[in-house]
C-alpha cells in the first residue's frame, strides 16, 4: 500500500512540463506587452497598438486561468464562460479608449 497522502492524482493537475511551457508563454507575452505598450517611451499608443495590447492581455489572462488555475479540466461551458468574461472586460476598456482615440468625446473647457 502506498502511504503517501496524495499519491493518487485525482485532481488532474497540469504536469510540471505543462506549467513550465505556460510560464515560457507568459514571459514571452509579457515581452510582447512591453513592446506593444512601449514601456520606454512617452508617446501615445494609438488605437491599433491599444487593441494589440488588449489581445496580448487576453492571452496572458487566459493562460493563467487554463493552466495555472487548471480550468482546462472544467466543462466547455465554464471555459468559454470565463474566456467570454475576459473578452467582455477587455473590449469594454478598449471601447472606452476608442471613444477618445476616434475623437468621439467632447471635452468642455
Amino acid at each position, binding site marked *: 500500500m502506498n502511504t503517501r497522502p496524495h499519491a493518487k492524482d485525482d485532481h*488532474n493537475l497540469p*504536469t510540471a512540463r505543462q506549467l513550465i511551457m505556460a510560464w515560457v508563454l507568459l514571459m514571452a507575452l*509579457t515581452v510582447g*506587452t512591453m513592446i506593444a505598450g512601449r514601456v520606454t517611451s512617452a508617446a*501615445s499608443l494609438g488605437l491599433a497598438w491599444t487593441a494589440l495590447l*488588449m489581445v496580448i492581455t487576453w492571452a496572458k489572462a487566459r493562460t*493563467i486561468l487554463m493552466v495555472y488555475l487548471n480550468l482546462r479540466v*472544467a466543462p466547455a461551458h465554464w471555459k468559454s464562460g470565463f474566456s467570454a468574461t475576459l473578452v467582455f*472586460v477587455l473590449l469594454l476598456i478598449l471601447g472606452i479608449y476608442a471613444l477618445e482615440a476616434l475623437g468621439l468625446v467632447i471635452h468642455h473647457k
Partner: protein
Amino acid sequence: MSETKTDREQKGDQATSGSLDEGWGPLSELPGNPMMWLLIISEIAVFGAGFAGFAVAFVMNPDLFRESQDTLNRLAGAINTMVLVTSGLFAALAVRAESEGRTGLMRLHVAIAVLLGLVFLGVKVVEYSGELSAGHTIDTNTFFTLYYLLTGFHALHVVLGIIILVIVAIWHSLDNLETGAAFWHMVDLIWVILFPVVYLLR
C-alpha cells in the same frame, strides 16, 4: 457480513462529501475549491468595474492622465509582471509536488513563490517612494487617486496571498495547497490586466 463501525464512518464521510459537492451546483464542476472560484468571479467583476472606471476617467481628461502616467516607472511594472508570473509557476509546482507527496519540494516551491511575492512588494515600495518623493500623493489628481487605490488594493491581495501560502505550506494537504495557490493565481490574473490598463494605455 456485519458492517463494522469504520465502514459506517467511511460511508458517512462519503455521503457528507457527496452532499457538499451537490450543494455547490454547477460550481462543483470547476477544479479545486468552489468558494475560491466564487471569489475569482467576484474579483474579476470588482476589478473589471475599477478598470472600466479608470478608462472613463482617462477619456474625460486624457491630457492630465497621459502627463501623470508618464511619471510612472513602466519598466518596473513590466518587471513586476515577470516576477508575479514566475511566482505563480512555483505556486503551481508546489501543488504538483504536494500531489506527489513530496512535502520538502512543495515547501521549497512555496518558499520561492513567497520570496518572489516579497520582491513584487519591494518593487512596489520603490515605485510608491519615487511617486511620493515627486509630490504625487493620493489626492494630487484623479489619476493618482485611482492609481494608488487600484495598485494598493492589489498589493493588499499580494500580502494576503503570501500569508495564505505560508499557512497552507505549514498545514498542508492537497486541497489546502490547491486553494492557496488558486488565490495566488487570482492575484496574478488581476495584475496582468491592471498593468497594461494603469501603466500603458495612453
